[in-house]
């Protein structure tokens, strides 16, 4: 029998935190046909996932190396670090980078003052406060021009 390389490749993603943002990202990745693992210490948070979510869920402390090993982090094409705490996020991101050699990491930063810390370790970030403030600043400048 002939074996052909799949026309559309599936990727493997790990998402830390299954709150509002984490669940949206996990649902989106799953809907696109990728394999997804979501880790959260609160089992109830998995209720945020849609009915169509077909990935796997793991309950546990996100920053535990054993948990990461169980999630096969080393095989992840990208890791999303989206817990609601900046300190936890930096710790997870650094552990994933240092111990599991994953380079595609994107973390959420709540406090813009922490952006520099993430930048120091070359971790890609998304900061909702900065995104909102930049958008609002644009809105203000537009108003001033009128």
């Amino acid at each position, binding site marked *: 029998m002939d074996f052909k390389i799949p026309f559309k490749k599936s990727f493997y993603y790990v998402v830390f935190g299954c709150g509002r943002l984490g669940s949206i990202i996990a649902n989106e990745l799953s809907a696109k046909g990728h394999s997804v693992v979501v880790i959260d210490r609160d089992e109830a948070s998995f209720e945020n996932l849609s009915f169509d979510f*077909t990935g796997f869920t793991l309950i546990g402390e996100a920053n535990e190396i054993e948990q990461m090993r169980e*999630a096969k982090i080393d095989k992840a094409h990208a890791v999303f670090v989206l817990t609601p705490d900046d300190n936890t996020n930096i710790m997870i991101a650094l552990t994933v980078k240092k111990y599991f050699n994953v380079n595609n990491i994107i973390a959420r930063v709540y406090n813009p003052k922490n952006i520099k810390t993430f930048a120091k370790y070359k971790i890609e970030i998304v900061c909702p406060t900065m995104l909102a403030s930049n958008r609002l600043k644009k809105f203000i400048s537009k108003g001033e021009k009128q």
Partner: protein
Amino acid sequence: MPLIYVLSEERNVIRNIISILEKVDGNVLRSFTEPDELLNEIRTKKPDLLFVDLKVSKGELTGISLLDKFKRYNYNFPVVVVTTLNSIEAVKKAFQYDVIDYISIPFTPDEILEIFQKAIKISNEPTFNEKIKELKKRIEFMNKEDNKDLEDQIKSLFYKNPSLPQPHYLYALFMKNKNPNIAIKNLKASLALDPNFKEAKYALDELENNK
């Protein structure tokens, strides 16, 4: 067209495996949540690869008891067991039933594709019965001098299937002109493993009458 069956009670296990393998051209996938349903399907059409979630349990049928059935019915399609990381004992047990591999949850697309390639390769290899038939034919037409390769192949069947009567029978056919005593010894061993093995019985009678 590779035919792949997936048995699991977990929706995400089924949908993950299917979504990864349906992207390979030509694959035909079928999923089952009930072991009975799977057994019925297998009776009509055997797959090229079967994934069995060891967590499956319905009445007396469990993942392991299904593997036992496959072995007893001499089904020889490749089977991969799906398990969680903390079920090492169950995996060890599954390997006693000749599964080709196991995969732990959560699994990655690459892991599934790797297992698929391995299974298809195995699927393309001749089955035990086909191999026996082929070797028997080669013994009939073997030349007197150069048959080292044939002997090696028969011996490798011994090592792989020590409890089956056919390799002893084949070795007896191979040796009957060279050393009838060794042939008789092997035919007796073959009949000890399966007293109803008619071909071995006829061959033994023939050799003993010619003695």
